[in-house]
């Protein structure tokens, strides 16, 4: 299983279509890492999320690879992850932060 943590803002499109996004992220994890995603979703309640000290519309999606990644491969996967998010949620690229971490040492 590939650990995956998603922070989303309450009431936004990403919050409303969680099940769809979970399926998409699981499929992404299978393609990228050949293993399903162990997903933890955390909804930031209204009034509790801030970006640039203003109410946030940002989602943060973080995967932890099971093997160290070459940077070109990581960049490609990050682009794919952002594309999934923008396509499904109608958010802009500026509203998605994606990280893919190497395994913990």
């Amino acid at each position, binding site marked *: 299983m590939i650990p995956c943590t998603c*922070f989303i803002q309450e009431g936004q499109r990403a919050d409303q279509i969680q099940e769809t996004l979970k399926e998409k992220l699981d499929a992404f994890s299978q393609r990228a890492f050949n293993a399903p995603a162990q997903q933890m979703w*955390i909804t*930031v*309640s209204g*009034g*509790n*999320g*801030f*970006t*640039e*000290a203003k109410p*946030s519309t*940002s989602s*943060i999606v973080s995967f932890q690879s099971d093997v160290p990644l070459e*940077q070109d491969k*990581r*960049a490609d996967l*990050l*682009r794919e*992850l*952002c594309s999934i998010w923008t396509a499904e949620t109608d958010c802009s*690229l*500026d509203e*998605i*932060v*994606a*990280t*893919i*971490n*190497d395994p913990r040492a």
Partner: protein
Amino acid sequence: MPLYLCNARPGTLSADAKAGIADDITRIHCEVTGAPPTFVHAFHFDGGMAPDIGDKSIALHGNIRAGRTDDQKQDIMDQICDAVAHRSGVTRDQISMTIGDVPASWAMEGGDIMPEPGEEAAWLEAHAAKTAQAG
């Protein structure tokens, strides 16, 4: 990135205090590191799973881009904890904070790999040009 998480026991922080703390976190992070405020995310939780509150009243954790010095990280933690104490009325010894490093190259924001510390201005300029071209 950075992403700061602030987890407080339910009822500890008012809505005004949360907004004020987010403002303080943004200002302090930018003053200490030179990063632009547009990068700074601050999310609050009331009795959330993480960061672990333990025997404290408020726990904070920051995931920041790697490359900051230990002195910078300590300065950020000291200033943020002082600000949280001031905003919340909770004593300083009831507030804990940790910071973790994430290589900039592991993160993407706005569709671009994040800049290394010190390269933010060029990144923002290139990002703005790309956005204008796309729009």
